[in-house]
C-alpha cells in the first residue's frame, strides 16, 4: 500500500493504534495452549453460519411454503444443497467446538476472578446457540423436523403452571403448523441474532480486557519462566491455519454427507421410527426420560427437570465455589464436579442413542 494512502486512512481511523495493540498483545504459550483454539473455532463456525444463513434467506420462505422452498434449495438452486449442508454442519461443529471450549476453560480454571463474566456470558452463548439449533431444526418442515420439534416442545409443557403457556406460545396454538414455522423463523433470524451478537461482542471484549487465562500449572511457575508469543502475527497465523483446516473439514463433511431432506411433515401420518433431537440435546433428553421411568407420573418430570436445572445452575456458579488461585479443597471438589458432569454427559448421550427403538 502506498505510504500516503496508508497515512490517509490511519489519520482518520487510527489503524496504527490497533496494529500496535495487536502486536503488543501476548498469548501464553505452554503445553496446554492448543486448547486456546476452540473459542476461535466456535467463532469461525459462527461466521460461516451467518454467511450461509444469509444465502439461505435468499430462497427460503417460512409458513406454508417452507418445505417446498427447502426442497427447491436442495434440488434445484445451483449449489443450494452445498450451502444448506454447510449451514447445518457448521451449526453442529460450532456447538461441538463451544462444548470443547467450555470444558477446556473449566478444567483450566479460567472462570476464576476476574473472568466470572466470561464464564457466564459463555454459558449464555452456548444456551442461545442450542436454541438457535432447536429453532433452525424445524424450518425445513420435513417429517423428522416436525416430530422432533413436537417432542421438544412437549418437554417444557410438563413444567407446572408456566410450562403449557411456554409451549403454546412457541407453537402459536396447540399444534405445530405454518404459524409455528413463521415464529421459529423470526426467532432464528431476527430475535436470537439480536441477542447473540451483542453478547458475543461482550464475551470477546472481556477476552481482550483480561487476556487469555493461564492454567494453574502455569501460574505455579515464576513469571520469568512463563513463555508467551505475540498475538500478531504469530498467534493470528496459527489461528488462521486452524481455521483453514476447519474450513476443509467442513467442506468435506458437507460434500460427503450432505444434509438430508425427508418427506414433508404430515401430522396425520404416524411418526417415523427413531425420532430424536440433535445429538447435543440427547443427554438432557435422556436425563428427563430416565427420571420419568424411575418415578412415574408428574413426580418424575418434576425431579428430572429439577435435577437437570440444579446441575446447570451449579455449573454457572463455580466461580463462587472456586474463586481464585488459592484453590484448596474447593478447587479440587469443583474439578471433580467437572469430571462428573463430563461423565454424565457422555454416558447419558450414549445411553440415549442405545435406547432408540432401532438401537443405533
Amino acid at each position: 500500500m502506498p505510504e500516503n494512502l496508508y497515512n490517509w486512512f490511519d489519520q482518520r481511523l487510527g489503524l496504527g493504534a490497533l496494529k500496535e495493540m495487536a502486536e503488543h498483545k501476548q498469548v501464553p504459550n505452554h503445553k496446554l495452549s492448543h486448547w486456546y483454539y476452540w473459542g476461535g473455532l466456535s467463532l469461525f463456525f459462527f461466521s460461516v453460519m451467518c454467511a450461509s444463513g444469509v444465502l439461505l434467506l435468499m430462497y427460503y420462505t417460512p409458513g406454508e411454503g417452507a418445505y417446498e422452498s427447502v426442497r427447491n434449495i436442495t434440488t434445484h438452486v445451483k449449489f443450494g444443497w452445498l450451502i444448506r449442508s454447510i449451514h447445518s454442519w457448521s451449526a453442529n461443529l460450532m456447538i461441538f467446538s463451544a462444548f470443547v471450549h467450555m470444558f477446556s476453560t473449566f478444567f483450566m480454571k479460567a472462570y476464576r476472578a476476574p473472568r466470572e463474566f466470561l464464564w457466564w456470558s459463555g454459558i449464555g452463548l452456548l444456551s442461545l446457540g442450542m436454541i438457535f439449533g432447536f429453532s433452525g431444526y424445524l424450518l425445513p418442515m420435513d417429517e423428522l423436523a416436525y416430530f422432533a420439534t413436537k417432542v421438544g416442545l412437549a418437554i417444557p409443557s410438563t413444567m407446572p403452571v408456566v410450562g403449557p403457556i411456554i409451549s403454546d406460545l412457541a407453537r402459536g396454538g396447540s399444534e405445530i403448523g405454518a404459524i409455528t414455522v413463521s415464529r421459529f423463523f423470526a426467532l432464528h433470524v431476527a430475535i436470537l441474532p439480536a441477542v447473540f451478537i451483542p453478547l458475543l461482542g461482550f464475551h470477546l471484549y472481556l477476552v481482550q480486557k483480561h487476556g487469555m487465562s493461564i492454567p494453574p500449572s502455569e501460574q505455579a511457575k515464576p513469571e520469568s519462566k512463563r513463555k508467551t508469543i505475540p498475538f500478531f502475527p504469530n498467534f493470528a497465523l496459527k489461528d488462521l491455519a486452524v481455521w483453514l483446516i476447519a474450513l476443509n473439514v467442513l467442506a468435506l463433511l458437507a460434500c460427503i454427507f450432505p444434509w438430508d431432506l425427508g418427506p414433508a411433515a404430515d401430522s396425520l401420518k404416524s411418526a417415523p421410527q427413531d425420532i430424536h433431537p440433535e445429538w447435543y440435546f440427547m443427554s438432557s433428553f435422556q436425563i428427563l426420560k430416565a427420571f420419568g421411568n424411575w418415578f412415574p407420573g408428574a413426580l418424575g418430570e418434576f425431579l428430572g427437570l429439577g435435577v437437570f436445572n440444579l446441575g446447570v445452575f451449579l455449573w454457572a456458579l463455580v466461580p463462587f465455589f472456586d474463586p481464585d488461585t488459592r484453590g484448596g479443597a474447593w478447587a479440587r471438589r469443583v474439578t471433580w464436579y467437572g469430571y462428573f458432569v463430563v461423565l454424565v454427559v457422555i454416558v447419558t448421550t450414549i445411553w440415549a442413542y442405545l435406547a432408540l427403538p432401532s438401537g443405533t
Partner: protein
Amino acid sequence: MSEDKKNVPNPGEVDQDRRTFLKLAAGAVGVGYAGLVGYPVYRYVASPVEDAAAVGAVKEVTLAPEAASLPKNASMMFKFGSQPAMLIHHDDDTWTALTAVCTHLGCTAGYDPVKKHIFCPCHGGTYDAHTGANVAGPPPKPLDKFAVKIAEGKVVVSRA
C-alpha cells in the same frame, strides 16, 4: 525458526528468493480458496438468472384460445418467455405482436385504442402500433416485433 537457519547459507541473512517464493505461494493459496468459496456462492446467487435465461430463450408462444377472438382495435398482454408482450388486433384485421418493454427505461407500454398507437406512461414514449417504430418521446429504439400466425382459432407468436 531454527530449521530456517539451517537452510540459509549465511545465518542472520534473510534468503530473499525463499521469502518471495513463500509470499507468492501464500498468495496463490489465498486466491485458490477465494475461488473455491466464491464460485459456488456466485452460482448459488446467480441461479435464478440462469433459470430466467432458460425461460427467456423460448422461440415460440401459443396464446390462450381467447386470443383468436380478440375484437378489432383491441389488445391483450401476454408473456413471451419472461417478458411482457402485447398482441394487437387492428381495425384493418391485421395483427401485430411486439414486446411491451419500453426501450427507454423498461416500463411496460400499452396500446391506446383511441389514438391507435402504443404509449408508455412513464415518460410519454410513443410507438407506431403496426411497426413498433419509436415515433415520439424519449425511446431510443423501436419495440421488437414478433411474427404472428393465426390458424384454426389458435394464435402462435414467434421470434421474427
